[in-house]
């Protein structure tokens, strides 16, 4: 109990003084997770749109697979990316294991199915409503996908925010492919895990607070975006 209040006090001074090490870790985490969310969005949203508006063989199977991949265990993704990127692996020559790039790849793989599956759901619902009208106006299926993406931009932004939230909270895969190297691949979550096990609670707690704050802020932002769009655009 005593150590807890002591830790809390030290945490506060860490946060208040904007400790350089802590700030670096936060910025590194943000940079990688934002990159992963953007790449995931650029691939995942159009993929979701294409699956939503097209009928092709194996579509149902693809949807089931995507939905299943949403629950992908993070350590398994970490292991697979590790095997791909390790020196003996097929992409070993890239030499990017234990770099931020490896982390971004793992995070992107992890969140992409979620982004594709959720956007397919949202776009599919809208497509169901719009299909006849768009066809009546002479829209092609190829053209319908960007029309729908633009029409649903606010819902899709909240989906990307959710993906970012998952990426920044990720620990298993990031630990495996990043190697938790100080100053290079040590992000908030892996630092928390490491410092807690070392008994250095102030840094762990401080980062924990910041992570919690980021996740709360994300949810608030998603809510505001959705609510405003709903009221303004219907």
């Amino acid at each position, binding site marked *: 109990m005593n150590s807890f209040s002591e830790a809390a006090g030290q945490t506060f001074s860490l946060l208040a003084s904007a400790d350089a090490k802590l700030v670096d870790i936060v910025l590194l985490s943000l940079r990688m997770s934002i990159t992963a969310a953007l790449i995931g969005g650029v691939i995942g949203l159009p993929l979701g749109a294409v699956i939503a508006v097209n009928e092709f063989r194996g579509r149902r199977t693809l949807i089931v697979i995507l939905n299943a991949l949403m629950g992908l265990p993070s350590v398994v993704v970490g292991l697979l990316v590790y095997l791909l990127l390790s020196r003996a692996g097929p992409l070993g020559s890239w030499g990017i294991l234990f770099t931020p790039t490896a982390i971004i790849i793992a995070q992107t793989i992890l969140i992409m199915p979620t982004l594709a599956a959720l956007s397919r759901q949202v776009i599919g619902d809208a497509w169901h409503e719009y299909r006849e009208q768009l066809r*009546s106006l002479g829209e092609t299926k190829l053209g319908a996908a960007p029309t729908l993406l633009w*029409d649903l931009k606010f819902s899709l932004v909240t989906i990307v925010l959710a993906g970012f939230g998952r990426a920044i909270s990720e620990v298993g895969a990031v630990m495996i492919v990043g190697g938790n190297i100080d100053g290079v691949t040590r992000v908030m979550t892996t630092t928390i895990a490491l410092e807690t096990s070392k008994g250095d609670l102030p840094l762990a707690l401080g980062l924990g607070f910041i992570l919690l704050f980021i996740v709360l802020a994300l949810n608030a932002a998603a809510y505001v975006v959705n609510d405003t769009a709903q009221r303004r655009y*219907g």
Partner: protein
Amino acid sequence: MRAPLSLLPLSLDKVVFEVGSRRIIDAISVSLEAGPRTVVLGPNGAGKSVLLRLCHGLLAPTSGVVAWNSAEIAGSSRRQAMVFQRPVLLRRSALGNITYALKLAGVPFAQRKERAMEALRKVGLEEIGAHSARVLSGGEQQRLALARVWALRPEILFLDEPTASLDPGATQEIEKVIAALHAAGTKIVMVTHNLGQAHRLGDEILFLHQGRLLERTPADRFFKNPASPEAAQFLEGELPW
């Protein structure tokens, strides 16, 4: 350059539409000419909406042929339009909904806004061009859907119960726009359950019953003296208006 051949008449030859083993449209043959406003009547489930969708190309017949006088060229802009019972509008401004349709119709960018504004004026919505389409009232949304049609100037317009959920005032507004479209040369084919409206807007009546076209009669005669007993019964049930 030659003027494009008219789309009309539209001829249906023994058109059948089946879902599974259920026959929803049963061998309908009819020819719709340019000019008279055609109103499609019939009880719920008669197949009116399906018939309109078959004509408009949203559904493909199980057998039989839906043929235009001059075939629409694939990939070029459509010369026919449809208005649905519930207007379908995109999440953008009223004006943006019209310019989007004009873009699909191949109208050059520089002309789109002007044409869209003119169409909004036509339906009395010029004040709200910048408003979001989906927060407009039901009546305004349906007028916007008709403004979109006006901007496209189609040769033929299909309407599926366009005023079914509107109050009398809004209904009157919609009827005015439909009349103006017809006066400007657009062929009107409309489904309605409002017999007063069929009376006001119809030149000829197609009466559908259980997927079959039971009669095609000039409107005056249909209401006074329908040819089929089913139509007589239908009129009795739906009256008075």
